[in-house]
């Protein structure tokens, strides 16, 4: 890839990080954080975006970032108090900045009116006119880094405009450095070298102020120079040479006309070229620090009154070798990559191509399978449990598991990246709906596999939309109900028994069950006479074709219902459930696997086939008694477990492995808990054991099969299908009325 394009890609990546940093910093400020480091971090984020944008000529972005930065600078220096209103405006600006970055990256258009309003708002806060934005020199040149005219040309172009009069053919400069000049690592010889590039020079050294040794301050500056230049250099050219040092020296530039009196040159008349060659030969020696150059001047004083030697000695600091371009790409030091940019006190990290990680995960998957095969072979060979081989194998299993966990941890990321997108959504929703919403987040550091994170954004976005649109009441209604007019929406994540549980909770009115039920009846989703429990009514909102908004609002009504949310959660191997209390609010709880790559499963046999049931769904296994099983007609059966009736699903029959139902006494029953806490019993022929299996997508390699979630390879090398328990249970109840199977 073209190196600039690559850097540009890095820039946009970095922008995303800076934007995230910006948002979290601003949110901290909104929450009352007044630490100067927080404000600084926010400032730096915008500043960085601006700097990079300038380098790539992204003018819109530079312009807005500059106004934003100016405002932040006011906040940073305490000239503008970080009041609630100011922080809110800054947050809105952060959103605009994010839009601009994305527009620059993806080539889309931005809402110009919104940018302008926001920019005007920022300018109003600082009282600094937008037009002042140009004073940082950002607007003066084109920013295409590779295509600029060389520096010299700029000045050639500028100077005639300033000084239309013909330049004199000759200049005299008097130059007396102060000690500060050396203390800042500037060096007279370099300035003289620069002058020599402008024309023919004659240099005279004045060492008259040099004190005797006892009075000499090693860091003092005692020498001064007079330089005469012939050629067509302009005064601006000459001044430019002294740009960095003009505050640290006395400089006098005088023009001498063509017929002007030549200067009186004293004893030491030097040719600068000779000086440089002298310095070059001295350059090989170990150089004294340049700031102490005057010390070197002692040498000639002590030995001979020969000021000419002073300059080479002073120059000896380094070789005056000119810019010699050697290609040394290979020699670059990579240590700069060892730490992440912009994160203070973060642990060192590296960036790795995702493909490499995925390859590693695949390989570890193979390793797990291979280890299982090996174990099986050893077992088949009839070796004693206590044998060395079996002992080694146990260790191998342990190690394999640890490697697998470690590799999975590489892909694990904190849910922060998803949670971070939500404050903006909430702000936008709040302003559209006219509701006051406070978003609380908890457990942002909870880690989960990257794939899960990537597929979490859409369902989470919709759940928050739903919570604000349908859950929270308007401020008036809340006041009437005696609540805080500002509603709360809480987003939390936590690890719970090997899964991640993400909850979206609101303190709104809760689910209006009467209305939900009426809608379901009106839409023909349930029979009018159905008597449903509260939980069942709550779960109606997950039915396809259900939407509680009587008018399709701008927010929730985007063609996505809660049924889609539920499906996408299920596709991730997750479950979603609701708890709702009238007047107090609702909580949507999602439970997701930490990874999509491995699964703890129970290996079972059904109708000669080996199948895997996800262990997380299994509550217990039992040996059913024939007396506990009751037929319901239509082939359906229920089983009585500790006094409650649970539907019995004959796995072999459901999947078509056998034609006749399995006698319940011949099989083993697995009590499982599906989504929303519904229970069922899976009847299988036998249990083979429990093991960790590597998930291989059936959909990607073959096609989607109802009732089957995925496949895996077992220790004996055979493919086993992983059951989709919820789908199996759902399929078995479609024929019957839901209530019937929920008995007890």
């Amino acid at each position, binding site marked *: 890839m073209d190196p600039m394009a690559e850097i540009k890609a890095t820039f946009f990546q970095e922008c995303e990080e800076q934007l995230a940093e910006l948002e979290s910093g601003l949110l901290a400020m909104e929450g009352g954080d007044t630490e100067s480091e927080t404000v600084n971090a926010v400032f730096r984020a915008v500043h960085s975006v601006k700097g990079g944008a*300038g380098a790539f000529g992204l003018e819109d972005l530079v312009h807005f970032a500059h106004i934003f930065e100016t405002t932040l600078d006011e906040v940073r220096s305490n000239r503008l108090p970080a009041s609630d209103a100011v922080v809110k405006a800054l947050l809105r600006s952060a959103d605009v900045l994010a839009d601009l970055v994305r527009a620059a990256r993806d080539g889309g258009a931005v809402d110009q009116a919104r940018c302008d309003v926001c920019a005007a708002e920022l300018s109003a806060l600082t009282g600094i006119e937008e037009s002042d934005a140009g004073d940082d020199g950002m607007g003066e040149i084109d920013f295409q880094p590779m295509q600029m005219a060389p520096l010299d040309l700029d000045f050639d172009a500028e100077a005639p405009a300033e000084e239309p009069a013909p330049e004199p053919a000759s200049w005299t400069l008097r130059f007396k450095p102060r000690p500060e000049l050396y203390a800042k690592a500037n060096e007279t010889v*370099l300035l003289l070298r620069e002058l020599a590039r402008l024309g023919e020079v004659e240099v005279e050294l004045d060492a008259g102020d040099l004190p005797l040794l006892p009075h000499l301050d090693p860091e003092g500056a005692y020498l001064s120079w007079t330089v005469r230049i012939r050629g067509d250099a302009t005064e601006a050219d000459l001044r430019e040479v002294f740009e960095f040092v003009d505050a640290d020296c006395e400089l006098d530039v005088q023009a001498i006309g063509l017929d002007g009196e030549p200067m009186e040159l004293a004893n030491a008349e030097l040719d600068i070229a000779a000086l440089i060659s002298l310095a070059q030969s001295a350059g090989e020696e170990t150089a004294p620090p340049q700031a102490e150059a005057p010390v070197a001047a002692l040498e000639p004083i002590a030995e001979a009154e020969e000021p000419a030697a002073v300059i080479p000695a002073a120059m000896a600091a380094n070789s005056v070798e000119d*810019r010699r371009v050697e290609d040394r790409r290979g020699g670059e030091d990579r240590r700069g990559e060892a730490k992440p940019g912009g994160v203070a006190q973060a642990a060192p990290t590296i960036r790795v191509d995702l493909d490499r990680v995925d390859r590693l995960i695949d390989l570890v998957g193979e390793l797990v399978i291979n280890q299982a095969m090996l174990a099986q072979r050893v077992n088949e060979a009839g070796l004693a449990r206590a044998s060395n081989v079996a002992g080694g194998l146990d260790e191998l299993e342990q190690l394999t598991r640890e490697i697998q966990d470690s590799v999975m941890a590489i892909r694990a990321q904190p849910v922060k990246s998803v949670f971070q997108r939500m404050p903006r959504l909430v702000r936008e929703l709040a302003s559209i709906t006219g509701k006051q919403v406070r978003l609380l987040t908890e457990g942002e550091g909870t880690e989960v596999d990257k794939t899960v994170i990537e597929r979490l954004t859409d369902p989470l976005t919709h759940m928050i939309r739903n919570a604000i649109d349908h859950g929270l009441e308007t401020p008036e209604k809340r006041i009437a109900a005696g609540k805080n007019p500002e509603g709360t929406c809480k987003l939390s994540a936590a690890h719970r028994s090997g899964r991640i549980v993400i909850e979206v909770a609101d303190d709104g009115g809760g689910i209006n069950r009467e209305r939900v039920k009426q809608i379901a009846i009106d839409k023909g989703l349930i029979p009018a006479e159905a008597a449903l429990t509260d939980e069942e009514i709550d779960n109606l909102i997950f039915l396809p074709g259900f939407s509680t908004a009587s008018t399709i609002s701008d927010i929730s009504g985007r063609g996505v219902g809660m049924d889609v949310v539920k499906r996408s959660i299920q596709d991730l191997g997750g479950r979603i459930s609701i708890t709702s209390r009238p007047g107090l609010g609702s909580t949507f709880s999602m439970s997701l696997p930490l990874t999509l790559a491995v699964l703890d499963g129970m290996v079972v046999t059904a109708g000669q086939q080996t199948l895997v049931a996800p262990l997380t769904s299994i509550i217990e296994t039992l040996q059913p008694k024939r007396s506990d099983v009751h037929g319901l007609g239509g082939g359906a059966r229920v089983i009585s477990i500790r006094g409650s009736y649970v539907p019995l699903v004959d796995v072999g029959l459901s999947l078509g492995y056998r034609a006749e139902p399995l006698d319940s006494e011949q099989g083993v029953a697995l009590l499982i808990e599906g989504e929303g806490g519904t229970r069922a019993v899976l009847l299988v022929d036998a249990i083979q054991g429990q093991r960790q299996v590597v998930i291989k997508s059936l959909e990607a390699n073959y096609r989607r099969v109802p009732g089957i979630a995925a496949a895996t390879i077992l220790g004996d090398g055979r493919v086993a299908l992983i059951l989709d328990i919820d789908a199996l249970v759902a399929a078995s109840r479609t024929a019957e009325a839901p209530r019937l199977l929920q008995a007890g």
Partner: protein
Amino acid sequence: MSKTILTVDDSRTMRDMLRLALVDAGFNVVQAEDGVHGLEVLAGETPDVIVTDINMPRMDGYGFIEGVRADARCRAIPILVLTTESSAEKKMRARDAGATGWIVKPFNPEKLVEAIRRVAA
């Protein structure tokens, strides 16, 4: 022998751009991500020129320059400051901290190399 340049900048984009421009111009490049890191790098390297940003976490450019100037071994190394501001006030402040010169961002490679040439012996 080609010269070694230490660049100190918290932005990865900026570091990459500096590296590209400097390596193309034949310099050895050593990089650091903030002032603290820059001083750490200096413990093991003696670059010919340092190019540093100002706004950085942990230790900003001013602090870094003061740190370099306070170190007897490193204080004679020329330091160029990268600044988006061409305002006199910002330049003064960098100079007061001990900067040798400055480069106004956005820079182009020619401008950068030219500035380095001007201060590098």
